[in-house]
């Protein structure tokens, strides 16, 4: 955190994405781990999966009664010496968790500028992916383009910090589309071969509630642990800058919309936005997923300290 604060203070004109790759930040991220809650892969790895146990491992989870066919080497003879019962040890499963960091590149995430929504999404993806790579997880990067007929693009798997250059190049190459993104279709394309992984979806989710729900259903179908990061800008949240503007143009569709730029209208917009965010949070919660809203103004530091715990993720040393 201190490194992030120092980097932000020293390079105020640096984009959020660039801040995520400063040496100070990387040194800090090298010492922390991103712990998932129930996502786990099928291949052994370094991520301890709490709700699963293995016959081998490093952290003892429990003892179970010996059954015929169990490996005799797993019998805990000390217990037998005291209790006269044959029990075997079960350890916390350590798996390789496939982690997907999917960035929405629809036009609503624009404009592509420093401290914009896309910059924030790129930076968060880089930050979390870097931590995951440090933990030895399998990391995938995906981009859902801002055009309905375009295919989603992915990168990975990336397995170690040596892939940081590839990770940075992929994220830096993300370009905004000129239309709306179909999140469900994009996720379906990206997760065809992935099951039981964790998907961090970075988007503004300024789409129909039904479309958002379909995207969540795709994650459910793939048995993935979904983490929804809703990235909004200051202008999205505070419409007071629209005083004097009575015509709004949708960045994705180019459609016009006439409003009465009055405080009452803006208050009602804020209420509608709150309802929209709340609906997304409820939809995610009902599917066992976590969601968090972050504003571009808070920066990486604000996200890590305030919004990341809402996702059920935590950085541990």
């Amino acid at each position, binding site marked *: 955190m201190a490194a992030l604060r120092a980097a932000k203070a020293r390079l105020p004109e640096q984009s959020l994405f660039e801040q995520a790759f400063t040496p100070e930040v990387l040194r800090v991220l090298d010492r922390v781990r991103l712990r998932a809650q129930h996502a786990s892969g099928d291949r052994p790895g370094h991520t301890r999966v709490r709700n699963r146990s293995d016959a081998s491992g490093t952290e003892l989870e429990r003892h179970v009664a010996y059954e015929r066919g169990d490996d005799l080497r797993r019998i805990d003879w000390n217990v037998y010496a005291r209790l006269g019962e044959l029990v075997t040890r079960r350890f916390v499963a350590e798996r390789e968790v496939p982690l997907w960091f999917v960035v929405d590149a629809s036009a609503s995430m624009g404009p592509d500028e420093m401290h914009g929504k896309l910059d924030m999404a790129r930076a968060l993806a880089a930050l979390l992916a870097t931590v995951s790579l440090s933990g030895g997880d399998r990391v995938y990067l995906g981009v859902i383009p801002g055009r309905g007929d375009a295919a989603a693009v992915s990168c990975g798997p990336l397995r170690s910090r040596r892939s940081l250059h590839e990770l940075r190049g992929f994220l830096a190459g993300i370009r905004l589309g000129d239309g709306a993104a179909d999140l469900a279709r994009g996720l379906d394309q990206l997760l065809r071969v992935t099951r039981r992984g964790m998907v961090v979806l970075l988007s503004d989710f300024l*789409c129909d509630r039904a479309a958002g729900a379909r995207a969540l259903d795709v994650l459910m179908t793939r048995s993935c642990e979904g983490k929804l990061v809703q990235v909004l800008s200051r202008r999205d949240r505070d419409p007071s800058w629209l*005083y*004097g503007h009575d015509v*709004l143009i949708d960045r994705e569709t180019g459609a016009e919309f006439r409003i009465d730029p009055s405080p009452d209208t803006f208050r009602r*917009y804020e209420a509608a936005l709150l309802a929209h*965010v*709340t609906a997304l949070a409820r939809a995610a919660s009902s599917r066992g997923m976590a969601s968090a809203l972050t504003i571009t103004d808070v920066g990486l530091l604000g996200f890590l300290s305030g919004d990341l715990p809402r*996702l059920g993720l935590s950085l541990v040393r």
Partner: protein
Amino acid sequence: MGYGFAAPAWLAALAILVPLLWLYLRSRRRPPAVVSSLVVWRVLTEAAAPRRKPYLPLLFFVQAALIVASVIALAQPFVQHPVPPGPPRDAIVVLDVSASMQARDGGSTRFERARAAAQERAYELGRSGRKLTVIAAGQQPQVVGTQLDGARAADLIGRLEPRDTSGNLTAAAELAAAQAGPQGSIDVFTDAAGDGLVMSRDARAISTVHRFGSGGDNVAVAGVRVLANPFEPLGRTRALVTLHSYADEAREVTITLEPVEAASGEPAQPVSRTVTLAPGATEVVSADGFGWSGAFRAVLAPDDDLPLDNVVYGVVPAPTPLRVLLVTEDIALQRAVETLARSLGNVTVRTLVPVQYRPEAREEITIFDRFAPPLPPAGNVAYLAPPRGNPDVTVAGGATRGRVAEQREHELVAGVQNAETLLGDGVALAASAALKPVLLGRAEGREVPLVLAGEVGGRRIVATSFPLRAADLRSADALPTLVFTINLLRWLSPTSGAAPLTRIAGERLRAGFRDAAPIARIEGPDGARELGPAEEITLERAGVYAAVGGGEERTLLVSFVDPVESDIARPAAAPSVAAPPRPATAEPAAQALWQRVPYVREALLAALLAMLLEWLVVAASGPRARRGGPGPSDAAADPASAGGATA
């Protein structure tokens, strides 16, 4: 109550509101705004139908209020409050009742004409619905009546008569102005010339002067003085009558002095003198050869336009033998005084040595030479170098010799030249409240009175620090001593208690006299009038009065002598036109009856409050408050707190 601005030109600054309004309306013509998505906006279906009428935010109205309050403050607003009504706004009629109004003018007098005009004016003002106040402008202004209708005022005016005194129109006009107030009117009826009428600006602003009388041919008796020597016979008494001509041409007049009351015996012969007076000339006519004594009137003939000043009154004192008691041990002084008395005539001197003196031995005049009895005599007395021990004179020291330092104006030292020759070895006197120094000297470095004179209890007292030298009374070279002695006898000669009192018209007469019975009743030209013991009245009529008091009756002679009033000549003037009567419901002048209360500070305070409110509005709608304060957006930023569940 009214409103206004002291500097209304500043109100033009309200035009600043126009560009302000334009700025706010202009912002509505901005280009369309590009937003991330309309998904949320489309929920606001009502927002899709913007209002037709232009929208102005609260900030505009606050700023407009700030501008309006500032401009109003610059324009200096005020509120006019009606001033409480002042004195009653009457129509005032001032009638000059001074002596000059008695001047004949045509077939009547100036006063009669003025009085008739004043009555007519009173009727006219009464018909216009105004209440009248009548003021008589005599020596002192007198309010005859207030809140009168026209008929009542005319009736009171008709009862007024001119007085034999001067008039004070200035005081009357000021009294009228105070009574009338700024909305009243004053009508002055007088014969005073325009330049002789002194009034304040306020009084003149509401006054209409009606002038009466022009021309005027008058010769007045300006005074009379009787020179009577008690040592001489009646036939040598002289009366000096001063005449003054106010006529434009030479006039031959005859002044006749005749007794007021005819003697019971043979008829008294009047004394007449004829003199020709040049225009504006003053002549003193000397009359003698009186065969009678007592009160007389000096009557001027022929008659002129002002008969009032053709008569004055005087008194020829009756010659009575003067009896003198001289108490001295100086035989030479005794002989010298007796010789002087014989020379003067009509004076008898009786001489006693101090051991023979008894208080019963009283005469009209008692002269003590270097002697003072323990009890003073009842009559007039002179002390020559008195010793100590007398209640009349305070002797401060023994023998002293000084020099004459100051000779004051007094009958005792009138005509005394080189008073130094009077002095000799004497005593040191001390002045008192009753005895004042007449001749002052200086001895041993301080002032000492040499001659004291005064009245105590109706007695005349003279004290000298030096004795009279017999040799000086016999020597023609020592004239000052002789003159002083004659003056002493003349001043000490008693006047008759029944001698007539003489006054000038307009003077005040006190009912009480010192050491005499007060006047209880006075009868004269105005009729009889009772007086209180301490009452003081103004003698407004010239003539012969009878003052009764203490069982005695004294004659009171009141003469009219007033050069200003006698000068009745007036330049011809166009008849004055009466100002039209003001309606009773005339609107009050704004300057006079309204008071302006400025409200500049309140307007400035309103401007400051508007400025503060503007800051609050800006702060409440600005991004900083939205970022830090709790609001809907903050709830939106925290879906968990809004009910959203997290995994």
